[in-house]
């Protein structure tokens, strides 16, 4: 099953309430996916020229002070700001996304990088939505857009790493409801082209594919067109970039999706019930997106 949800705010007056609006959406969708929960929150709160890195600690009580000391020594005078988030942390660093991931991996490879970019922060873990969101204080977070996922695992293990979203290139995140059937073949092709993977999850393959296409110059719409050509299986995908998000459904469209749009926001979710608490949603234009059509919105 799995549940997916996204909210993009058009009205900056709502930015401070982003987390407060998104958490109930994910909580409702816990019935579609109780195994793990994840959210990518986009907020432009880092100084210009810096990159935010969402890091997941290998265990509770991890020695972040030691990690930071090692990072400062290795980063050669780069600006580093540490923001603890529950067990995990976001590090804001003047080292850009071209060198940052490698630098961080060198400090302690057991600390996993779940997302990076100028606006994105990724929080994900095993557990139902209410619990995971409370752990990271997602409800208190502001921002201009967020996408989230509640997972009912069907094809790979239930672990923190296997949770969605998959955010594998700057400010890009993907959540997936469904299952790809030819992902092993696509993964082999990508690996042959030099792409590296963190997990054996099918959705990560789509995220890596989109990242590779966009790195080669495609825009998000082009990359999703490629997904429809290359991937076989069932999918409703929600993919976000720094100030945009897009949805696409496979040709059978058996994985649900509802869109509600008002003057203040665009909200998408697997079921309308997840949108029912949004302000003014009773006046929204509500529809189900068509199969094989790419819908995009810009914040």
């Amino acid at each position: 099953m799995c549940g997916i949800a996204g909210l993009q705010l058009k009205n900056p007056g709502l930015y401070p309430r982003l987390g407060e609006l998104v958490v109930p959406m994910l909580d409702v969708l816990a019935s579609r996916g109780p195994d793990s929960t994840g959210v990518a929150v986009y907020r432009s709160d880092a100084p210009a020229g810096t990159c935010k890195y969402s890091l997941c600690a290998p265990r509770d009580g991890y020695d972040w002070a030691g990690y930071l000391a090692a990072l400062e020594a290795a980063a050669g005078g780069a600006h580093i700001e540490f923001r603890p988030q529950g067990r995990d942390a976001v590090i804001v660093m003047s080292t850009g996304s071209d060198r940052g991931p490698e630098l961080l991996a060198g400090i302690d490879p057991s600390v996993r990088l779940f997302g990076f970019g100028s606006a994105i922060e990724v929080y994900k873990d095993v557990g139902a939505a209410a619990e995971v969101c409370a752990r990271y204080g997602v409800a208190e977070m502001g921002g201009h857009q967020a996408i989230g996922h509640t997972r009912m695992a069907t094809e790979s293990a239930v672990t923190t790493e296997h949770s969605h979203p998959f955010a594998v290139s700057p400010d890009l995140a993907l959540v997936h409801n469904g299952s790809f059937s030819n992902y092993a073949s696509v993964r082999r092709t990508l690996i042959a082209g030099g792409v590296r993977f963190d997990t054996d999850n099918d959705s990560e393959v789509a995220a890596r594919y989109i990242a590779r296409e966009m790195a080669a110059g495609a825009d998000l719409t082009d990359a999703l067109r490629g997904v429809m050509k290359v991937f076989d299986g069932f999918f409703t995908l929600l993919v976000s970039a720094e100030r945009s998000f897009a949805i696409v459904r496979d040709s059978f469209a058996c994985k649900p999706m509802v869109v509600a749009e008002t003057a203040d926001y665009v909200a998408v979710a697997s079921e309308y019930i997840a949108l029912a608490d949004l302000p003014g949603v009773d006046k929204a234009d509500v529809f189900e997106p068509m199969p094989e059509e790419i819908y995009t919105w810009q914040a």
Partner: protein
Amino acid sequence: MAGLTAIELSCADMTVRQVNQALRSLPDGSVIRIAEPRGRHNIAVGLTGRLDITIAGNAGYFIAGLCDGPDVTVEGFVGWSVGENLMSGSVRVHGNASECTGASARGGLIAIHGDASSRAGISLKGGTVAIAGDAGHMSGFMAQAGTILIGGDAADSLGDSLYEAVIYVGGKIRSLGSDAQVAELGPDDVRLVNEVARDAGFSHISAEDVTKIVSAKQLYNFDALKDQKY
């Protein structure tokens, strides 16, 4: 209904099960308004009374499914399978509908005043599905009996593997499914389309101008020796 005071139920302070139990206990002729549906699934299912029910807002899956009698109006959007397996009565949606509108309905009327998504009228068994706007792909798939009226456009594979159900389309058809074909429109068809449009409350249908889709009946009998492939 004019002159009758509606009984108010609210999904804000009742579970769907409590709402449905309350509906089941009401006598024929009751008028009910269900407030704050909040996208809940399974509202007003399995009812046999002659009730007049209004759902005041957007609702979830299986709304008014398995009903045999009531008239249900939804003031908003509905999720998957509205009026699924309807036996008699009506479901009127003043908004858009998700997939599988009126799936397997044996009787009654399911009227969508907006657009319906994929697989509208799938496996229809005698009911009437009327859509004011567009219908998604695979609509009318394997429909066995009954009538589907699409006021707007139909997406791909309309009427795939159709049996005896008949589909009328006011707008364009992107593609027909396997074994579906266009048939000549006769006076009985025009009469039927006018009747369905009137019952559904549609005023924009020009009955003389619709396209009629029926089964070509080439898939009725499996030919084991076809091309000697089996």
